[in-house]
Protein backbone atom coordinates (compact mmCIF):
# COMPACT_ATOMS: atom_id res chain seq x y z
CA UNK A 1 0.00 0.00 0.00
CA UNK A 2 1.33 3.42 -0.99
CA UNK A 3 -1.04 6.35 -0.80
CA UNK A 4 -0.21 9.93 -1.70
CA UNK A 5 -2.28 12.95 -0.79
CA UNK A 6 -1.91 16.62 -1.68
CA UNK A 7 -3.42 19.26 0.59
CA UNK A 8 -3.72 22.69 -1.04
CA UNK A 9 -5.21 26.09 -0.25
CA UNK A 10 -4.47 29.69 0.81
CA UNK A 11 -1.75 30.31 3.35
CA UNK A 12 -3.60 30.62 6.65
CA UNK A 13 -6.26 28.03 5.81
CA UNK A 14 -4.32 25.43 7.73
CA UNK A 15 -3.51 23.10 4.84
CA UNK A 16 0.00 22.48 6.13
CA UNK A 17 -1.33 21.43 9.51
CA UNK A 18 -3.80 19.06 7.84
CA UNK A 19 -0.88 17.36 6.13
CA UNK A 20 1.12 17.26 9.35
CA UNK A 21 -1.90 15.83 11.10
CA UNK A 22 -2.17 12.96 8.65
CA UNK A 23 1.60 12.37 8.81
CA UNK A 24 1.51 12.31 12.61
CA UNK A 25 -1.42 9.90 12.67
CA UNK A 26 0.27 7.56 10.21
CA UNK A 27 3.46 7.68 12.26
CA UNK A 28 1.51 6.75 15.39
CA UNK A 29 0.16 3.75 13.52
CA UNK A 30 3.70 2.66 12.78
CA UNK A 31 3.54 3.34 9.05
CA UNK A 32 6.24 4.79 6.84
CA UNK A 33 5.46 8.39 6.07
CA UNK A 34 6.94 11.42 4.35
CA UNK A 35 5.70 15.00 4.50
CA UNK A 36 6.90 17.43 1.83
CA UNK A 37 5.83 21.09 2.04
CA UNK A 38 5.93 23.56 -0.83
CA UNK A 39 8.59 26.14 -0.08
CA UNK A 40 10.49 29.24 -1.13
CA UNK A 41 9.23 31.68 -3.75
CA UNK A 42 6.57 29.12 -4.60
CA UNK A 43 4.81 30.13 -1.42
CA UNK A 44 4.65 33.85 -2.30
CA UNK A 45 1.32 35.10 -3.47
CA UNK A 46 -0.42 33.33 -0.68
CA UNK A 47 -0.93 29.73 -1.81
CA UNK A 48 0.44 26.73 0.02
CA UNK A 49 0.43 23.00 -0.41
CA UNK A 50 1.98 19.85 0.97
CA UNK A 51 2.26 16.22 -0.04
CA UNK A 52 1.95 13.31 2.36
CA UNK A 53 2.92 9.77 1.38
CA UNK A 54 1.88 6.88 3.60
CA UNK A 55 3.04 3.32 3.01
CA UNK A 56 3.69 -0.05 4.62
CA UNK A 57 7.05 -0.14 2.87
CA UNK A 58 9.94 2.27 2.41
CA UNK A 59 8.80 5.29 0.39
CA UNK A 60 10.76 5.79 -2.79
CA UNK A 61 9.75 9.32 -3.69
CA UNK A 62 7.94 11.80 -1.46
CA UNK A 63 6.70 13.63 -4.57
CA UNK A 64 3.22 12.90 -5.89
CA UNK A 65 2.92 13.34 -9.63
CA UNK A 66 -0.42 11.52 -9.69
CA UNK A 67 -1.83 11.53 -6.16
CA UNK A 68 -4.62 9.29 -4.93
CA UNK A 69 -6.28 12.10 -3.01
CA UNK A 70 -6.39 15.85 -3.40
CA UNK A 71 -7.87 18.28 -0.95
CA UNK A 72 -8.60 21.63 -2.59
CA UNK A 73 -9.45 24.28 -0.02
CA UNK A 74 -9.72 27.11 -2.56
CA UNK A 75 -10.29 27.81 -6.23
CA UNK A 76 -6.65 28.29 -7.38
CA UNK A 77 -5.69 24.94 -5.83
CA UNK A 78 -8.45 23.19 -7.72
CA UNK A 79 -7.29 24.72 -10.99
CA UNK A 80 -3.70 23.79 -10.31
CA UNK A 81 -4.15 20.21 -9.16
CA UNK A 82 -7.34 18.73 -10.58
CA UNK A 83 -5.64 17.29 -13.66
CA UNK A 84 -2.95 15.55 -11.63
CA UNK A 85 -5.19 13.26 -9.65
CA UNK A 86 -5.07 9.57 -10.50
CA UNK A 87 -7.95 8.03 -12.38
CA UNK A 88 -10.18 6.53 -9.72
CA UNK A 89 -8.82 8.95 -7.12
CA UNK A 90 -10.85 11.17 -4.84
CA UNK A 91 -11.02 14.95 -5.04
CA UNK A 92 -12.18 16.75 -1.89
CA UNK A 93 -13.54 20.20 -2.58
CA UNK A 94 -14.22 22.94 -0.08
CA UNK A 95 -17.59 23.80 -1.57
CA UNK A 96 -17.94 26.88 0.65
CA UNK A 97 -15.28 28.60 -1.45
CA UNK A 98 -15.33 26.69 -4.73
CA UNK A 99 -18.17 26.81 -7.19
CA UNK A 100 -16.56 25.54 -10.36
CA UNK A 101 -17.75 22.48 -12.21
CA UNK A 102 -15.27 19.63 -12.42
CA UNK A 103 -14.62 18.44 -15.92
CA UNK A 104 -13.27 14.97 -15.10
CA UNK A 105 -15.60 11.99 -14.98
CA UNK A 106 -13.05 9.37 -13.91
CA UNK A 107 -12.63 10.53 -10.33
CA UNK A 108 -14.78 10.58 -7.24
CA UNK A 109 -15.71 14.03 -5.97
CA UNK A 110 -16.54 14.82 -2.37
CA UNK A 111 -17.93 18.26 -1.68
CA UNK A 112 -17.57 19.52 1.87
CA UNK A 113 -18.91 22.95 2.83
CA UNK A 114 -16.06 23.21 5.30
CA UNK A 115 -16.27 26.92 6.05
CA UNK A 116 -20.00 27.07 6.60
CA UNK A 117 -19.94 24.02 8.87
CA UNK A 118 -17.07 25.51 10.85
CA UNK A 119 -18.97 28.79 11.16
CA UNK A 120 -22.04 26.98 12.41
CA UNK A 121 -19.87 25.32 15.03
CA UNK A 122 -18.76 28.78 16.10
CA UNK A 123 -15.11 28.28 15.11
CA UNK A 124 -14.66 29.59 11.57
CA UNK A 125 -10.91 28.90 11.66
CA UNK A 126 -11.37 25.17 12.00
CA UNK A 127 -12.70 24.65 8.47
CA UNK A 128 -9.56 22.64 7.81
CA UNK A 129 -10.49 20.20 10.55
CA UNK A 130 -13.98 19.74 9.16
CA UNK A 131 -12.38 18.82 5.87
CA UNK A 132 -9.87 16.62 7.67
CA UNK A 133 -12.75 14.68 9.25
CA UNK A 134 -14.44 14.04 5.93
CA UNK A 135 -11.10 13.08 4.41
CA UNK A 136 -10.26 10.68 7.24
CA UNK A 137 -13.54 8.84 6.84
CA UNK A 138 -13.52 8.58 3.06
CA UNK A 139 -9.81 7.87 2.55
CA UNK A 140 -9.51 5.31 5.32
CA UNK A 141 -5.70 5.74 5.44
CA UNK A 142 -5.60 6.16 9.20
CA UNK A 143 -8.18 5.81 11.93
CA UNK A 144 -9.95 8.85 13.31
CA UNK A 145 -8.61 8.06 16.77
CA UNK A 146 -5.03 8.33 15.48
CA UNK A 147 -5.89 11.68 13.94
CA UNK A 148 -7.16 12.86 17.31
CA UNK A 149 -4.04 11.50 19.03
CA UNK A 150 -1.96 13.39 16.45
CA UNK A 151 -3.90 16.56 17.14
CA UNK A 152 -3.27 16.23 20.84
CA UNK A 153 0.45 15.85 20.43
CA UNK A 154 0.63 18.79 17.99
CA UNK A 155 -1.37 21.10 20.26
CA UNK A 156 0.41 19.90 23.40
CA UNK A 157 -1.68 21.01 26.35
CA UNK A 158 -3.93 23.60 24.75
CA UNK A 159 -7.08 21.83 25.91
CA UNK A 160 -9.51 24.39 24.53
CA UNK A 161 -8.02 24.27 21.05
CA UNK A 162 -7.98 20.49 21.10
CA UNK A 163 -11.68 20.41 21.99
CA UNK A 164 -12.60 22.86 19.22
CA UNK A 165 -10.57 20.98 16.63
CA UNK A 166 -11.91 17.63 17.69
CA UNK A 167 -15.48 18.86 17.43
CA UNK A 168 -14.84 20.18 13.92
CA UNK A 169 -13.09 16.97 12.95
CA UNK A 170 -16.03 14.86 14.07
CA UNK A 171 -18.52 17.14 12.31
CA UNK A 172 -16.68 16.45 9.05
CA UNK A 173 -16.30 12.78 9.85
CA UNK A 174 -20.02 12.32 10.49
CA UNK A 175 -20.92 14.17 7.33
CA UNK A 176 -20.17 11.19 5.09
Amino acid sequence: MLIKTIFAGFGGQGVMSMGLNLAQAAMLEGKNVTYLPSYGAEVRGGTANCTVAVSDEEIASPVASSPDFIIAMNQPSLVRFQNQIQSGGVLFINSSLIEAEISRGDIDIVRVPANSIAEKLGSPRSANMVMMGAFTKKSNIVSVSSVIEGLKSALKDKQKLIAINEKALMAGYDLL
Partner: protein
Amino acid sequence: MRKVYTRPRLLKRVPFHYCPGCGHSVVHRVMTELIDEMNLGDRIIGIPPPGCSVFAYHYFDVDMAESAHGRGAAVATGIKRAFPEAIVFTYQGDGDLAAIGTAETIHAANRGERITAIFINNAVYGMTGGQMAPTTLSDQVTTTTPYGRDTKIEGYPIRMSEIVALIRGAVYIERTAVNSPANIRKTKKAIRKAFQAQIDDLGFSLVEILSPCPTNWRMTPLESWQWIDKVMTKEFPLGVIKDITGKNDAD
Protein backbone atom coordinates in the same frame (compact mmCIF):
# COMPACT_ATOMS: atom_id res chain seq x y z
CA MET B 1 -15.08 60.90 -18.66
CA ARG B 2 -11.48 61.66 -17.68
CA LYS B 3 -9.22 58.72 -17.09
CA VAL B 4 -7.51 59.22 -13.74
CA TYR B 5 -5.85 55.89 -13.33
CA THR B 6 -4.28 53.64 -15.88
CA ARG B 7 -1.82 50.82 -16.04
CA PRO B 8 1.68 52.18 -16.71
CA ARG B 9 2.70 51.37 -20.27
CA LEU B 10 5.95 49.78 -19.13
CA LEU B 11 4.34 47.50 -16.59
CA LYS B 12 3.80 44.12 -18.25
CA ARG B 13 0.33 42.63 -18.24
CA VAL B 14 1.02 39.79 -15.86
CA PRO B 15 -0.22 39.33 -12.31
CA PHE B 16 2.32 40.11 -9.57
CA HIS B 17 3.58 37.17 -7.55
CA TYR B 18 4.04 39.45 -4.54
CA CYS B 19 1.94 38.96 -1.44
CA PRO B 20 -1.07 41.22 -0.97
CA GLY B 21 0.04 44.55 0.52
CA CYS B 22 3.69 44.12 -0.48
CA GLY B 23 5.65 47.30 -1.10
CA HIS B 24 7.48 45.86 -4.09
CA SER B 25 4.34 46.06 -6.25
CA VAL B 26 3.87 49.74 -5.39
CA VAL B 27 7.47 50.61 -6.18
CA HIS B 28 7.27 48.71 -9.47
CA ARG B 29 4.24 50.71 -10.45
CA VAL B 30 5.81 54.02 -9.53
CA MET B 31 9.05 53.22 -11.31
CA THR B 32 7.50 52.02 -14.55
CA GLU B 33 5.37 55.16 -14.64
CA LEU B 34 8.40 57.33 -14.04
CA ILE B 35 10.64 55.61 -16.56
CA ASP B 36 7.98 56.24 -19.16
CA GLU B 37 7.49 59.86 -18.13
CA MET B 38 11.24 60.51 -18.27
CA ASN B 39 11.42 58.77 -21.64
CA LEU B 40 14.07 56.34 -20.46
CA GLY B 41 12.33 53.17 -21.54
CA ASP B 42 14.71 52.48 -24.38
CA ARG B 43 18.00 53.09 -22.64
CA ILE B 44 17.44 51.97 -19.11
CA ILE B 45 18.87 48.72 -17.77
CA GLY B 46 17.78 47.25 -14.44
CA ILE B 47 19.60 44.78 -12.22
CA PRO B 48 17.44 42.90 -9.74
CA PRO B 49 19.57 40.50 -7.65
CA PRO B 50 18.01 37.71 -5.55
CA GLY B 51 15.29 38.88 -3.18
CA CYS B 52 11.53 38.77 -3.50
CA SER B 53 12.00 41.09 -6.46
CA VAL B 54 14.37 38.80 -8.35
CA PHE B 55 11.54 38.35 -10.83
CA ALA B 56 11.17 42.12 -11.35
CA TYR B 57 12.05 41.51 -14.99
CA HIS B 58 8.68 39.80 -15.39
CA TYR B 59 7.01 43.12 -14.69
CA PHE B 60 9.28 45.92 -15.95
CA ASP B 61 9.02 46.11 -19.70
CA VAL B 62 12.65 47.31 -20.00
CA ASP B 63 16.01 45.59 -20.29
CA MET B 64 16.96 43.81 -17.09
CA ALA B 65 19.50 41.25 -15.96
CA GLU B 66 19.89 39.20 -12.83
CA SER B 67 23.06 39.44 -10.78
CA ALA B 68 24.47 37.24 -8.04
CA HIS B 69 23.31 38.11 -4.53
CA GLY B 70 24.83 41.39 -3.38
CA ARG B 71 26.83 42.00 -6.51
CA GLY B 72 24.36 44.36 -8.17
CA ALA B 73 26.48 47.49 -7.82
CA ALA B 74 29.48 45.72 -9.36
CA VAL B 75 27.44 44.42 -12.27
CA ALA B 76 25.87 47.83 -12.79
CA THR B 77 29.35 49.36 -12.75
CA GLY B 78 30.42 47.01 -15.52
CA ILE B 79 27.38 47.87 -17.60
CA LYS B 80 27.80 51.60 -17.15
CA ARG B 81 31.52 51.58 -17.89
CA ALA B 82 31.06 49.54 -21.04
CA PHE B 83 27.95 51.37 -22.16
CA PRO B 84 27.82 54.87 -20.65
CA GLU B 85 24.71 55.88 -22.60
CA ALA B 86 22.64 53.49 -20.56
CA ILE B 87 20.76 54.57 -17.47
CA VAL B 88 21.47 51.83 -15.00
CA PHE B 89 19.68 50.99 -11.80
CA THR B 90 19.92 48.21 -9.28
CA TYR B 91 16.83 47.10 -7.40
CA GLN B 92 18.11 45.65 -4.16
CA GLY B 93 16.72 44.46 -0.87
CA ASP B 94 18.22 45.33 2.50
CA GLY B 95 19.85 41.92 2.82
CA ASP B 96 21.28 42.29 -0.61
CA LEU B 97 22.52 45.87 -0.40
CA ALA B 98 23.36 46.18 3.28
CA ALA B 99 24.72 42.73 4.18
CA ILE B 100 26.24 40.63 1.46
CA GLY B 101 26.63 43.55 -0.94
CA THR B 102 27.92 46.21 1.43
CA ALA B 103 31.39 46.21 -0.06
CA GLU B 104 30.15 46.43 -3.63
CA THR B 105 27.77 49.25 -2.75
CA ILE B 106 30.30 51.32 -0.84
CA HIS B 107 32.97 51.02 -3.48
CA ALA B 108 30.64 51.74 -6.38
CA ALA B 109 29.53 54.86 -4.50
CA ASN B 110 33.11 55.80 -3.78
CA ARG B 111 34.03 55.59 -7.43
CA GLY B 112 31.04 57.84 -8.06
CA GLU B 113 29.61 55.35 -10.49
CA ARG B 114 26.82 56.93 -12.47
CA ILE B 115 24.30 54.39 -11.37
CA THR B 116 21.18 54.49 -9.20
CA ALA B 117 20.45 52.09 -6.40
CA ILE B 118 16.82 51.52 -5.50
CA PHE B 119 17.08 50.13 -2.00
CA ILE B 120 14.00 48.36 -0.64
CA ASN B 121 14.19 48.36 3.13
CA ASN B 122 11.59 45.97 4.56
CA ALA B 123 13.59 45.12 7.69
CA VAL B 124 13.67 41.40 6.84
CA TYR B 125 14.87 38.89 4.31
CA GLY B 126 11.58 38.49 2.50
CA MET B 127 12.37 35.90 -0.08
CA THR B 128 14.04 33.38 2.17
CA GLY B 129 11.28 33.50 4.75
CA GLY B 130 11.64 36.43 7.10
CA GLN B 131 15.07 36.13 8.63
CA MET B 132 16.88 39.03 10.28
CA ALA B 133 18.13 41.70 7.89
CA PRO B 134 20.86 44.19 8.78
CA THR B 135 18.02 46.73 8.98
CA THR B 136 15.88 44.67 11.36
CA LEU B 137 14.89 46.87 14.30
CA SER B 138 16.00 46.29 17.87
CA ASP B 139 13.80 43.69 19.56
CA GLN B 140 12.11 42.84 16.28
CA VAL B 141 11.26 39.14 16.10
CA THR B 142 12.31 37.36 12.92
CA THR B 143 12.86 33.70 12.16
CA THR B 144 16.55 33.99 13.06
CA THR B 145 15.99 36.33 15.99
CA PRO B 146 13.25 34.27 17.64
CA TYR B 147 13.82 36.13 20.93
CA GLY B 148 13.88 39.54 19.27
CA ARG B 149 16.96 41.29 17.87
CA ASP B 150 19.34 41.74 20.76
CA THR B 151 21.71 44.55 19.83
CA LYS B 152 24.37 43.15 22.16
CA ILE B 153 24.52 39.98 20.11
CA GLU B 154 23.16 40.84 16.71
CA GLY B 155 24.18 44.46 16.41
CA TYR B 156 22.11 47.47 15.49
CA PRO B 157 19.83 48.23 12.59
CA ILE B 158 22.20 49.65 10.03
CA ARG B 159 21.57 53.05 8.51
CA MET B 160 23.02 52.38 5.15
CA SER B 161 21.87 55.60 3.52
CA GLU B 162 23.63 57.67 6.18
CA ILE B 163 26.77 55.61 5.71
CA VAL B 164 26.75 55.96 1.95
CA ALA B 165 26.11 59.69 2.38
CA LEU B 166 29.58 60.03 3.91
CA ILE B 167 31.11 58.81 0.70
CA ARG B 168 32.20 61.56 -1.60
CA GLY B 169 31.15 59.87 -4.84
CA ALA B 170 27.53 59.72 -3.70
CA VAL B 171 25.59 62.78 -4.86
CA TYR B 172 21.95 62.14 -4.11
CA ILE B 173 20.49 60.11 -1.28
CA GLU B 174 16.95 60.18 0.00
CA ARG B 175 14.85 57.96 2.24
CA THR B 176 11.16 57.62 1.48
CA ALA B 177 8.36 55.18 2.20
CA VAL B 178 5.43 53.64 0.34
CA ASN B 179 2.89 53.59 3.13
CA SER B 180 0.57 56.42 2.09
CA PRO B 181 -0.43 58.16 -1.14
CA ALA B 182 1.61 61.21 -0.12
CA ASN B 183 4.70 59.14 0.62
CA ILE B 184 4.30 57.22 -2.61
CA ARG B 185 4.30 60.53 -4.53
CA LYS B 186 7.46 61.55 -2.67
CA THR B 187 9.07 58.27 -3.56
CA LYS B 188 8.44 58.90 -7.21
CA LYS B 189 9.93 62.35 -6.96
CA ALA B 190 12.99 61.03 -5.19
CA ILE B 191 13.64 58.39 -7.84
CA ARG B 192 13.22 61.06 -10.49
CA LYS B 193 15.96 63.12 -8.87
CA ALA B 194 18.19 60.10 -8.50
CA PHE B 195 17.83 59.25 -12.18
CA GLN B 196 18.40 62.90 -13.07
CA ALA B 197 21.69 62.90 -11.14
CA GLN B 198 22.75 59.96 -13.25
CA ILE B 199 21.59 61.56 -16.50
CA ASP B 200 23.54 64.69 -15.56
CA ASP B 201 26.62 62.52 -15.06
CA LEU B 202 27.12 63.64 -11.46
CA GLY B 203 27.70 60.45 -9.50
CA PHE B 204 26.15 57.69 -7.44
CA SER B 205 22.55 58.04 -6.33
CA LEU B 206 20.47 55.98 -3.95
CA VAL B 207 16.85 55.99 -2.86
CA GLU B 208 16.02 53.96 0.21
CA ILE B 209 12.37 53.02 0.37
CA LEU B 210 10.73 51.76 3.56
CA SER B 211 8.50 49.07 2.22
CA PRO B 212 5.91 46.86 3.94
CA CYS B 213 6.29 43.09 4.10
CA PRO B 214 3.00 42.11 5.74
CA THR B 215 3.74 38.42 5.32
CA ASN B 216 6.93 38.30 7.32
CA TRP B 217 5.92 41.04 9.72
CA ARG B 218 2.80 38.94 10.38
CA MET B 219 0.56 41.96 10.00
CA THR B 220 -2.34 43.00 7.82
CA PRO B 221 -1.41 45.40 5.01
CA LEU B 222 -2.99 48.25 6.96
CA GLU B 223 -1.13 47.41 10.17
CA SER B 224 2.11 47.27 8.22
CA TRP B 225 1.53 50.78 6.81
CA GLN B 226 0.99 52.01 10.36
CA TRP B 227 4.04 50.15 11.65
CA ILE B 228 6.22 51.98 9.12
CA ASP B 229 4.89 55.28 10.43
CA LYS B 230 4.98 54.50 14.13
CA VAL B 231 8.06 52.34 14.45
CA MET B 232 10.23 52.13 11.38
CA THR B 233 10.54 55.84 10.64
CA LYS B 234 11.81 56.41 14.20
CA GLU B 235 14.88 54.36 13.33
CA PHE B 236 14.98 55.38 9.69
CA PRO B 237 13.83 59.03 9.42
CA LEU B 238 12.44 60.05 6.06
CA GLY B 239 13.85 62.86 3.96
CA VAL B 240 16.74 63.94 1.77
CA ILE B 241 19.94 62.73 3.39
CA LYS B 242 22.39 64.16 0.89
CA ASP B 243 22.02 66.32 -2.18
CA ILE B 244 25.06 67.81 -3.83
CA THR B 245 23.57 67.79 -7.30
CA GLY B 246 23.28 71.57 -7.19
CA LYS B 247 19.69 71.42 -8.39
CA ASN B 248 17.08 73.18 -6.39
CA ASP B 249 13.79 71.59 -5.77
CA ALA B 250 11.69 72.40 -8.85
CA ASP B 251 8.64 72.95 -6.74
